[in-house]
């Protein structure tokens, strides 16, 4: 090696830390998603009470807990992280959320609607019907926020992270949107808890 080349090598900047590979949709999780959705369809088709209660309670519990935890615990922490730390966190966190949340939401809502039908809550003359409609409204608000703002931001962050040189400002903007919308859905989940506990209390 020539003296010039040696000098250049000595002063060369250290190689940037390798970023983890970004997989937008975790393909390994798809069979589990399919299994859950098939399970929900079977529970509906058979009017299987236990299956519907299981899907609704487990799904609803996970949905509420994840929304509250992400909205009030993880979200504010992400908001205070440096951009490289956000990138590191998002690379591992966002793909999982992309599969997890739509599956849990579909499972909870489909099973919940059937339970409401079985229990007569959908009947307009039922005294609890108003609470069921209130729960529809809460779900409607969450659906608009999640589908119009939160999920698109989630997917867009992953596409940005896949680029050879992600734009920090884009990630910052999209993560801010994610943190705010997660906070709003967290608040809506408090309303869900009130409505659901009121529904099953005689």
């Amino acid at each position, binding site marked *: 090696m020539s003296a010039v080349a040696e000098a250049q090598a000595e002063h060369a900047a250290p190689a940037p830390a390798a970023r983890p590979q970004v997989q937008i*949709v975790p393909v390994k999780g798809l069979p589990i998603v399919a299994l859950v*959705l098939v399970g*929900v*369809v079977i529970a*509906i*088709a058979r009017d299987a009470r236990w299956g519907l209660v299981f899907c609704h309670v487990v799904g609803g519990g996970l949905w509420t807990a994840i929304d509250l935890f992400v909205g009030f615990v993880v979200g504010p922490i992400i908001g205070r992280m440096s*951009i*490289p730390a956000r*990138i590191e966190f998002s690379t591992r966190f966002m793909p999982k959320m992309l599969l997890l949340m*739509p599956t849990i939401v*579909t499972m909870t809502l*489909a099973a919940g*609607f*059937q339970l409401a*039908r079985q229990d007569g809550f*959908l009947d*307009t003359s039922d005294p609890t*019907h108003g609470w*069921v*409609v209130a729960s*529809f*409204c809460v779900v*409607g*608000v969450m*659906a*608009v926020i999640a*589908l*119009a*703002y939160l*999920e*698109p*931001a989630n*997917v*867009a962050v992953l*596409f*940005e992270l896949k680029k050879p*040189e*992600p*734009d*920090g*400002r*884009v990630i910052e*903007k*999209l993560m801010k949107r994610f943190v705010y919308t997660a906070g709003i859905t967290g608040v809506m989940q408090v309303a869900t808890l009130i409505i659901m506990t009121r529904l099953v209390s005689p």
Partner: protein
Amino acid sequence: MSAHAGAADSLVDRKLPPVTEIGAASMIAIAVGLIYNASYLPKHAQTGVAVAILVVAAALQLVNALLLVRLREFAWARFRQVAGWSLLAYAVIAGMIEYAFVYDHTRGTQLVILTLMLALFMLNVPVLIAFTVTRYQRV
């Protein structure tokens, strides 16, 4: 990563039509329509109100489609890729909801209106996801 160094040519400041906002408004109309209809099940909600909501949701999506086709300098290949896969995912979700409606003996006009609302929902979400992704892609 170009944290702030590339701020001058960052796509954050790119000016594009309000596709997300209009899509969100359409989503609100769909949610209102579905809640209005579902809150009357298994009886029938007033058809006129349901159709009016459906028309508003469809009109907003039509405006979005017109705004999108007029876009130049847009990474259409990425848009189609993201919209296509999202459409597949939301077709499965919409299919499950439709199955539940049919299973619960929803019939006639009520089923037609709910199916059309589900179709609008199924088309709207992929557009919103694909637009948000593509607005930050270089052509």
